[in-house]
C-alpha cells in the first residue's frame, strides 16, 4: 500500500491505457510537455512520445472534432477540456456528433472518445473556472457521464472509460485532485452504472456524487455524533448510467433521502435523482425527498464561493427538515409568504 492522490491515480490510468493499447491518443491544450495545468498528464509525452500525447491548437471544438475524425480511423482519443467552462466551445461537437454518431449510423460507427474535464469549484478559482456542467451532458443521450470521488475510482473508472466503445464525459472534481488514499494500483472497482454505499446508516440516505461525496460523509459523521441520526451515504460514481437499484434500495431501507449536488439546483441532476427516488420509493418515504445544491446563480467569485457551495451545515440543516417529529416542513411556505 502507498499513498496515492486522485491526480496520481488519473495519471497512472492514462499511462496504463497508453501502454496497453497503441490506439489510445491523449491530446488537448498544454497536456504535452507541461503535463496539463493540473499535471494530470505529467510525463506522458516524455514516456510515450509526442506521437501519443500531444498539444493541439487552442480550439475546443477543433479538439473534439479532430477526435471524431481520429475515432473514425480506429483511434481512441482521450481529450482534455482545460476547465469545465472552456468545454462549451466544443458543445456542438459533443452533443451533435460524439453523442449521436453510433445512433445516427445504426451502430456502425461508435465514438470511443473520452472527454476529460476538471469540474466544479471549491478551489478559489475565478469566474469560468468552477462550473458544474454535468447536467448538460447527462441530459444528452449517447454520453456516459462519470464523476469519480475517490482515487481508486479515479483510476478504475478512467480505465473503463478509455476501454469503453462509447463516449464518456469524465468529470474530475478539481477540489479532490489532491485528496489521498492508501492504495495499490492498478485497482479495479465496481463498473459503470453501480453506485457505492460509502457509509451505512439506517435513518436517512444522502445521495451525492463527485465533489460532494466527502462533504456528505463529513455531514454524516457530524449528524451521528451531534444528533444521533444514522446516515447512509451513496456515491453515484456514474451519473449515466444511473444506478436506480442501489439508490432506491438504500432509500427504502432508511425512509428518508437528501440529494447533494454542487451544481445549481434548477433543472439539474439533483432534481432528476430526487424525482427518480420519489417515483420508486414513495411508500417507503417518511418525508419528501430534499435537495441540497448550489444556489441558482452564476458561480460566485472566490471570496463568496463558500456561500454557494453546499457545505456540511447546509446538509445538516436539510436533514433536520425531514419531518422527524411528523410535522410538515413549512420552509417553502415561509419563503413565499
Amino acid at each position, binding site marked *: 500500500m502507498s499513498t496515492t492522490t486522485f491526480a496520481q491515480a488519473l495519471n497512472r490510468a492514462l499511462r496504463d491505457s497508453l501502454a496497453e493499447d497503441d490506439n489510445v491518443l491523449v491530446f488537448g491544450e498544454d497536456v504535452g510537455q507541461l503535463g496539463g495545468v493540473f499535471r494530470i498528464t505529467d510525463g506522458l509525452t516524455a514516456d510515450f512520445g509526442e*506521437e501519443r500525447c500531444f498539444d493541439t491548437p487552442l*480550439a475546443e471544438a*477543433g479538439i473534439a*472534432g479532430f477526435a471524431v*475524425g481520429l475515432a473514425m480511423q480506429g483511434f481512441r482519443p482521450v481529450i482534455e477540456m482545460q476547465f469545465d467552462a472552456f468545454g462549451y466551445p466544443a458543445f456542438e461537437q459533443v452533443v451533435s456528433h460524439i453523442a449521436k454518431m453510433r*445512433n445516427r449510423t445504426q451502430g456502425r460507427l461508435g465514438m470511443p472518445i473520452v472527454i476529460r474535464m476538471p469540474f466544479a469549484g471549491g478551489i478559489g478559482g475565478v469566474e469560468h473556472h468552477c462550473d458544474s456542467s454535468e447536467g448538460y451532458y447527462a441530459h444528452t443521450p449517447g454520453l456516459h457521464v462519470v464523476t469519480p470521488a475517490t482515487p481508486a475510482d479515479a483510476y478504475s473508472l478512467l480505465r473503463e472509460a478509455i476501454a469503453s466503445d462509447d463516449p464518456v464525459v469524465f468529470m474530475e472534481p478539481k477540489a479532490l485532485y489532491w485528496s489521498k488514499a492508501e492504495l495499490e494500483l492498478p485497482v479495479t472497482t465496481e463498473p459503470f*452504472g453501480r453506485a457505492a454505499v460509502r457509509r451505512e446508516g439506517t435513518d436517512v440516505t444522502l445521495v451525492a456524487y463527485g465533489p460532494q461525496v466527502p462533504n456528505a460523509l463529513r455531514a454524516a459523521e457530524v449528524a451521528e455524533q451531534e444528533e444521533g441520526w444514522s446516515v447512509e451515504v451513496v456515491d453515484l460514481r456514474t451519473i449515466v448510467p444511473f444506478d436506480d437499484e442501489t439508490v432506491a434500495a438504500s432509500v427504502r431501507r432508511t425512509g428518508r433521502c437528501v440529494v447533494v449536488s454542487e451544481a445549481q439546483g434548477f433543472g439539474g441532476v439533483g432534481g432528476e435523482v430526487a424525482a427518480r427516488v420519489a417515483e420508486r420509493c414513495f411508500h417507503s418515504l417518511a418525508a419528501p425527498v430534499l435537495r441540497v445544491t448550489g444556489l441558482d446563480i452564476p458561480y460566485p467569485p472566490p471570496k463568496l464561493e463558500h456561500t454557494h457551495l453546499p457545505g456540511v451545515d447546509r446538509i445538516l440543516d436539510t436533514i433536520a427538515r425531514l419531518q422527524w417529529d411528523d410535522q410538515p416542513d413549512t420552509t417553502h411556505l415561509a419563503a413565499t409568504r
Partner: protein
Amino acid sequence: MSTGVQHLLPCAEPVQLLTEDGTRTDPTSEVRERGYAFPSDEDLLAVWRQMVIGRRFDAQATALTKQGRLAVYPSSRGQDACQVAPVLALQEQDWFFPTYRDSMALISRGLDPVEALTLLRGSWHCGYDPAATRTAPQCTPLATQAPHAAGAGHGMARRGEGGLALCFIGDGGTSEGDFHEGLNFAAVFNAPTVFFVQNNRYAISVPLARQTKAPSLAYKGIGYGIRSEQVDGNDPAAVLAVTRAAYEHARAGRGPFLIEAHTYRLEAHTNADDATRYRQADEVTQWSGRDPIARLRTYLVGTGALTPEREEQVAAEAEEYAADVRERMNREPEVAPLSLFDHVYAEPTPQLREQAAMVAAELEDAHGSEVTA
C-alpha cells in the same frame, strides 16, 4: 521555413480549362505552373456519364418530394461538376465528408441510392455504412465536418496507407468557426485533407456578400498556411484537374489543400424553399447558360470521344437508374420503433431497457399482437 505566401496563393481568376461553350482555353501561365493537367477524354467521359446519371437522380429525388416519398430534398442541380469530379478522382481508401447537399456525390461514390436517401426519406439518419463506404454521415450542422476531416486525414497519415480525406462544405459554412478550426488543425498536423468549398453563392437566402469580404473564399486558406485554389466549378475539366492536383499534394505529405469552386444552385435551397424571394430570375437564366454537362458534352462531341450511340446508351442508363430509385423509394420503408433503443449506446442502459419495455407494451396494445424487437 518560407514566410512568403506566393506558394499558397490561388490563381487571380478561377481556373478554367473549358470555356462556357465547351472549347479548350489557352491555359494561363499560372495554370501551367501549377500543373493542372487537362484530363484525358476517357476520364472526362466518365465524369460526363456520372453527371448525366447524377442529374437524372437529382430530378428523380425532387419528384419524390412531391409524392411525399422524401421529407425534404436539397438539390445540387447546376453543381453537377462539383458533385461528381472530386468524388470520382478519389481512391477507395480515401474518406469523404459530405453535407446534406451532396446526395449526387454520394451516388457518384457508388453508394446505394436508397441508402444515400435514407436521411431525407426520414426512415433513419444515416442509411449507409460509413466504415464500409469510407463516407461519413451527411453532415447537417454546418462546418462541423471540417475538424472531422482534419482528424480523419491525420489518422490516415498515422496509419501510413496513403489515404486522404475530402471535405465538402458550402459558402455559408465557411463563416462558421468549425471551418476555421478544421483548416487550422489540418494545417498544424499537416493532414492529407482536401477542403472543397462549393460556393453556390447562397446560404439559403443569404448571398455571398453577407458571408465574406474576401476576394475569394480560397484566400481563407492562406492565413492557415494552406495551399489554396479557386476554380470554375461549372467546368468539369478544371474541377477534375484541380482536385487531382490537390490530392497529389496531400498524398505527397505536403499537407491540406483548400479549393473554392465557383458554382450555382439552380434549384431553391430545398423543395420547401421559395428562391424567388431572394434572387432574380435573370440570374438563374444566366447561370443555366453555364451548364457543366452541356459544356463537357460539346467538348467531348468535338473530340469525337462522345458518340451518339454512347450518348443514347448513357441516357438509357440514367433512366434505368432513376426507375430503380423510383420503384424502390415507392415502397414503404420499414421502420422498427423498438430499434430506437438499439444504438444509443453499445449496451442499453437499464433506463433505456425500461423505456423499451414500455414502448413494446404500447405497441402490443396498439396492434393487439406481439411485436418483436
